């Protein structure tokens, strides 16, 4: 039943190195190489292509973060790792949607990856809290926060962008914004 998916797969160590070096080409290769496998898993187990995209991207993010954090060891094939994470994520989502019939049609070998998936979910929760806190913060605070802390722009840039004549004023504004953002973030449950 299983269709062999033929692609010229990059080697696993190539991918790990590429990701560590922020290589866009390697990321793209990684993504396109294993997406068909996950699409096959999802669409043949009560999902559609959008589900496949969500699940696959989550798995890639898990892998990406793990490589970036330096915790990734090539103890198994990347292919198996990605498949296992996707399988775990999809099972969770199926049972969440009450669509899980207790049986899943498998196409690959898989590993136990509960811990990784749980860590990922925990972090996702934090991110969604941050997202809504930023939304609640409103402009111009949101942009100031993003520009300064995420995009690492200098205060000089920010002053010019928002038309602050005094750098001290901008600084005060920034700290006020940060204060509010923290408050909004920690208020959420």
């Amino acid at each position: 039943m299983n269709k062999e998916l033929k692609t010229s797969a990059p080697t696993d160590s190539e991918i790990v190195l590429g990701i560590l070096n922020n290589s866009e080409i390697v990321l793209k290769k990684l993504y396109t190489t294993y997406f068909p496998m996950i699409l096959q898993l999802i669409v043949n187990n009560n999902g559609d292509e959008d589900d496949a995209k969500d699940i696959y991207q989550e798995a890639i993010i898990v892998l990406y973060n793990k490589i970036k954090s330096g915790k990734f060891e090539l103890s198994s094939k990347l292919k198996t790792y990605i498949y296992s994470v996707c399988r775990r994520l999809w099972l969770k989502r199926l049972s969440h949607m009450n669509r899980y019939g207790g049986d899943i049609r498998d196409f690959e070998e898989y590993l136990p990856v509960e811990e990784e998936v749980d860590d990922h979910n925990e972090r996702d929760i934090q991110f969604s809290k941050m997202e809504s806190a930023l939304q609640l913060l409103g402009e111009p605070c949101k942009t100031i926060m993003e520009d300064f802390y995420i995009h690492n722009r200098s205060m000089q840039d920010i002053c010019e962008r928002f038309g602050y004549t005094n750098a001290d004023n901008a600084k005060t504004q920034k700290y006020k914004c940060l204060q509010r953002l923290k408050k909004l973030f920690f208020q959420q449950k």
Partner: protein
Amino acid sequence: MSDNQLTELIERYLDGSMTAEEGTQFELLRKNDATVESRVTEHLQFIGLLKQYGERLELEKRLNAIHDEIDVHALKEEVTIHPTWVVRMWRNHHSKISVAASIAIFAILGTLFLTGKLNSHESNFEQLSQEIGKIKHSQETLNTRTNSIINDIKGSKRVTNPGNFRGTGFALSSNGYIVTNYHVIKDADSVYVQNANGESFHSKVIYTEPANDIAVLQINDEAFEGLGAVPYNFKRSSTDLGENVFTIGYPDSKVVYGLGSLTSATGYQGDTTEYQVSIPVNPGNSGGPLLDDRGNVVGIINAKQTQVAGAAFAVKSAYLLKAIQNIPSDSLSKSLTLNTKNTLAGLSRPQQLKKLKNYVFMVKVYNQ
């Protein structure tokens, strides 16, 4: 020190823009003040999360861009496992198929029910087995008949018919006129009557009335010397329901008394010429007298319909009298005068019977 100032200090400390002196001062502050220390950790974590969040958004954007380049539809077609056409058909049309199937089942059952196929098979079968039984039976009869014919031819002797049909008769007058049922003597070649002493006399049928099942015989045997005066008379009117009645007759080779009461003014299937009585009788009782308590003849026992349980029938005496009147005078070689004097009234039943039995005969019939 305000919050803002502290935050600024922390930031400056973290990004390394402090002078060496400021740095040492701040580290001292961190060590001595737990609040400052926790603020530093919290700031680090929060800013870290914010940065990671930004990175995550960035990564997602990149992944989406990559994803958009993939022809997902074509790929989906390729990787989807297509079930066989039967399964697909069932998935797409199972409701329609179910409805069609149930309609078909109902139609078949309905047709079978309406045409009677569902329930008539067994009875057909029974009929068939009955037919076979009949055929078997007739086959056996045929066999025995053939065998008996073969035996007859072999033995070359005729089996004489022993079947002298028995009935009962009783005297109308002292000079040998006797009445019985027509069906008793029907098709007879010769008729004998036998009295209580076992003496047989040859008789001839002088009158029959098949409609009322009445036959009148006359003893024409030389040995016959005549009877004494008949002790009973014949009742003209009809008898009431519930009246005690009795009979005496020859259901087999000996005389038998039967007692009961008159249970209906009409006979078998509403026959107005007969009574229904509750006397157990046998075919041999046919032609016997039915008498009431005082010894009046009220009817003639007619035991043709023995299938009615617990009931017998008797021809009403009025019809007997009518029949006697209808006898053509040519047929009467002697005068037939009925007794009008009842000598049984007032006697006890055993005495009545003792007298009666001399006037009641067994009728024996011979035919070839």
